[in-house]
């Protein structure tokens, strides 16, 4: 059974969204390769939201209300594999967390694995009511690797 991660990270006020977008664009190939290597993530996407707009769609202007959303579905235990995630995508999170409220306290994540794990848990909407309910899965007993093997 896969588990959801819905990481909602408020951006430090005054951050230029273009700078943020450029950083994300820069790390995307590395992120894709790392997720392939990790081998437990079904889907992953990073989105920008803007709390200042009625429909949360970002307007592209500098503001104080942006949120980075990291949304994935993954196999196994996130807690148990936090060390492996840090090994594979730690530097990517370091790059993103510099723009995130509270992120500086866990950078570099490789030196702060436990604190980084706690930070993820704190900001993962999927772990908190009312969003921690079971979710629909078309193939609830099949892992990424089993799918790849078929």
């Amino acid at each position, binding site marked *: 059974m896969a588990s959801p991660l819905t990481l909602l990270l408020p951006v430090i006020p005054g951050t230029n969204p273009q700078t943020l977008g450029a950083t994300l664009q820069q790390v995307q190939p590395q992120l894709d390769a790392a997720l392939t*290597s*990790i*081998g*437990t993530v079904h889907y992953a996407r990073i989105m920008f939201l803007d709390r200042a707009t009625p429909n949360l769609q970002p307007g592209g202007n500098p503001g104080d209300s942006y949120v980075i959303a990291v949304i994935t579905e993954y*196999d*196994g*235990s996130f807690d*148990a*594999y*936090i*060390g*492996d*995630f*840090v*090994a*594979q995508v*730690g530097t990517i999170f370091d790059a993103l967390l510099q723009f995130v409220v509270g992120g500086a306290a866990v950078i*570099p*994540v*490789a*030196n*702060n*694995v*436990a604190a980084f794990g706690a930070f993820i848990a704190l900001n993962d909407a999927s772990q908190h009511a009312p969003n921690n309910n079971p979710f629909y899965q078309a193939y609830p007993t099949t*892992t*990424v*690797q*089993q799918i*790849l*093997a*078929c």
Partner: protein
Amino acid sequence: MTAPALDYADIQGTILSGYRVDLARHFILSITDAKAAGNLIGALVDGTGGLPRITTAARWTVKPECFLNISFTATGLAALGLTQAQLGTFDPAFLRGATSPTTAGIVGDVGTSQPADWIGGLANGAQVHVILNLWVDDDPAVLETIAARLRAAFAGCMAELSAHDARALPDNRVHFGYRDSIAQPTVIGAPPRKHDIPDDQPPVATGEFLLGYPNASNGIYSVQPAELSTNSSYAAFRILEQDVAGFEAFLVEYAAKAGIDAEMLAAKVCGRWRNGNPLMLAPDAPGPVLPTAQLNDFTYVNTETPDQDDTLGLKCPIGSHIRRNNPRNGAVVGTDSTHHRIVRRAMPYGPPFDPVHPHPTPAARGLIGYFINASLFNQFEFLTGQWNLLSTFVKSAKAPCGSGTGNAVFNISGEDVFLGVNDPDSTSSNPSSFTLAACGASGSDNQVLTGFSRLITTRGGAYCFLPSIKGLRYLAQLPGAPES
């Protein structure tokens, strides 16, 4: 990775070197007078007052009369006076402790292995503060003499909850009959081993075994205060009782079911024949014991030489004990085996098994000692809870052209035969299961053995911190926990 220059005289010896001795005694202690306990720690560091000195990793020219190391639980550090803020910087698994229900669930200490049933005072984790380890070469009289000196020294400041003896079996065997102590990680910066058994794997970052150095993820594990950080380490102390009669019965029953020889099944569940030869180098019969230099010199995946490849686990099952605990270059989800190595410092305890009289008066026998790492969470617990208790960590992988059909994902099931919970009830959520792989799509021709029971029961444990010598001196001068 460049090897750091380690100050061996600041590192407790058991972390980086096995002592190659035959006798050990592990004292489980509870601090009753923190200030006096601090004085004792100082005396042990300096070897004063007629006491042996804590053994370091520094090179010795004349073999010492004994080897001595000391570790502390989280409650032990608190009893000595470490503050809650300082303790908050330690490994969260260490802080949880071995008897916590969370820990027990992660590592499979459930049912007959549950901490509530542990022996020697270990069931009450809060009262276990110190584990003092004494090793001597082979003379029981020397062991008793030094143990008496230690007992006299700690009598006024620590209560002895229990003492546990270990005695090596001939030829480095364990009670299940296998030759042991073959595979250990090569730690970057560690002293060269006298009796090195080279392997085919990358050396492991110093920071995987010592705090204060870069680890395999390019991070650094550390704690506060700084005096306790660099050159310290963690360990899981474990008492693992082996059901030898049960194992021999398992071999006979399930070898017959599989249509193979019992010794072949013994090799399949372990990954090595009982003489130590690995299945990867001796797939069909144990043969004569291979030269030491070859015993650990193999990998599982070989795309350049398909006839030496075992991606599918046809020679050495993917679920075998040594392959689960160190997949080497086999593809696993997450990262790789280099991030989850541990140093094993365990010795047999209890009388040798007598197959002629398999059930005399109940005699406990098994393995006792430390499993050492810089992160209990990412090494011991990961290894125990993930690779030993699950079968979904293997990546999709096909064999190189011509060496078999199928996929590695389908060629492993259940838990480790030795370290698994192994519920024989087929209706349970995780019933015991072991796969003997064969070529075939989606594992269609595999043999899957089911219905067997747990073979190793945890009888005790503690999560320990092995301070540096500098760290021990720091602990020695602490005032003790404030009065509550």
